[in-house]
């Protein structure tokens, strides 16, 4: 079955579609969870002054470079049936992969949102307060002002999740038809000496990454020209 490198069978095509679909849906879910946390958090950090804020921001920026394999290992130990979160029964499920990728994407999105919110707050903060808005009420206003940057931030988070292999292979287990993503499939096919198939999957992955960047640039560019004096 695996020998037919020249002819792609229906079942291989089905496997392939499943792999691509799982990659994208897991990454989308993780990006959505990360965004739901990071958008309010990033803005809050920009507009609420409190002790220790600087250190939190530094820490979040440092988490940009979290090695995925370390995140995967720690998360695996935590989720393992013999670990503290074992009762959730999550190891080797797509849900565990979503959690891992959320942890990887959230710092990036938070840091980018924070940076943009800081600039917007410096410029419009006083105005918002004068209009009678409380700081909490200002959060959605600020998010609205920086919407172009939000898009970049969220897509950067998505890019991190979809291209990552170290964490998802540890917590997902690379199970065929269940937790096999594009990146873990590439690792597997390469390890089996099936370089052409690995390369084909790689091409799809690169295609997705490029489309994401292109979308970011196009949308960000349009938003800048549309509201050039807004931010």
């Amino acid at each position, binding site marked *: 079955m*695996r020998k037919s490198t020249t002819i792609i069978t229906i079942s291989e095509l089905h496997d392939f579609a499943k792999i691509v679909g799982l990659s994208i849906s897991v990454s989308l879910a993780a990006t959505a969870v990360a965004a739901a946390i990071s958008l309010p958090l990033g803005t809050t950090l920009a507009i609420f002054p409190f002790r220790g804020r600087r250190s939190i921001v530094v820490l979040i920026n440092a988490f940009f470079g979290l090695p995925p394999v370390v995140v995967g290992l720690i998360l695996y130990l935590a989720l393992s049936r013999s*670990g503290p979160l074992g009762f959730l029964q999550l190891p080797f499920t*797509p849900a565990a992969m979503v959690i891992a990728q959320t942890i990887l994407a959230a710092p990036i999105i938070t840091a980018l949102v924070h940076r943009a919110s800081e600039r917007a707050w410096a410029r419009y903060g006083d105005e918002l307060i004068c209009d009678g808005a409380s700081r909490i009420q200002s959060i959605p206003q600020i998010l609205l002002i920086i919407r172009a940057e939000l898009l970049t931030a969220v897509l950067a988070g998505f890019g991190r999740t979809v291209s990552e292999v170290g964490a998802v292979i540890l917590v997902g287990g690379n199970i065929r038809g269940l*937790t096999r993503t594009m990146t873990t499939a590439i690792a597997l096919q*390469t390890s089996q*000496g099936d370089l052409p198939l690995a390369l084909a999957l790689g091409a799809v992955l690169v295609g997705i990454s490029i489309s994401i960047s292109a979308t970011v640039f196009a949308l960000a560019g349009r938003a800048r020209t549309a509201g050039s004096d807004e931010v």
Partner: protein
Amino acid sequence: MKARSILALMATIIAVHSSLAAEQSIILASTTSVESSGLLANILPQFTAKTGIAVNVVAQGTGKALDTARRGDADLLLVHDPEAEQQFMDEGHGSTRRQIAWNDFIIVGPSADPAHIRGGNDSVTALKAVASAQAPFVSRGDKSGTNAAELRLWKLAGQTPDTLNKEKWYRDIGGGMGQALNAASAMEAYTLSDRGTWLSFNNRGSLVIAIERDPRLINRYDVIELSAHEHANAKLGPAKIFADWLVSAEGQRAIGAYQLNEQKLFQPSAGSPK
């Protein structure tokens, strides 16, 4: 906007989650060799069609698979390292251990054959020749069943991991069987492989079989059920159904019928363990 995105996210998570909760399933921690040889992909659909139980295979080296089960993250084991398995049983993690099949290891190497071992069937003499020729040798180095078998052969050839790791020609790559074959192919090195992975491997370069059919190269695969005492949370019921199927006449027939390039890869042996 936020409420909508949270709803969308919930929907995605539920969709992802329900797709895996749809049927009864177990996690089988297994070795890279049974997965990459294509055996499991071939026989599992027959079992699932019959019983409705999905078997999710996490392919790791035997050492890691045993460890995954010790931690409670697997429901059943299919592995091939007699010594490590015995230790697992002695620790009380396993309840039953049954042989399902065997095949054999081979030593592969570059066709130039710098150690002049090609064509023989004495693996220990061959390894001695590799060592004295200082010909490159790739080791899995991942505590897999194949890695353990390799180290047992080296011991018979008078070498220990300590002496080997000092040698420049001995290259511990810490990877799966396919990775070791990729590395051996790229470095023109010898390596020990299971026959199944070798036959399904597509990137051989100049590698050919150097040594085969040594009785010491027999490779036994066992299915191990977990102890209810240590692993009460594991899905022991469906795991037992699968283990019993593997040793049943039907399961044994399925294993024996699997061929790759017209070669039989696994000899079913539940009836008469090797």
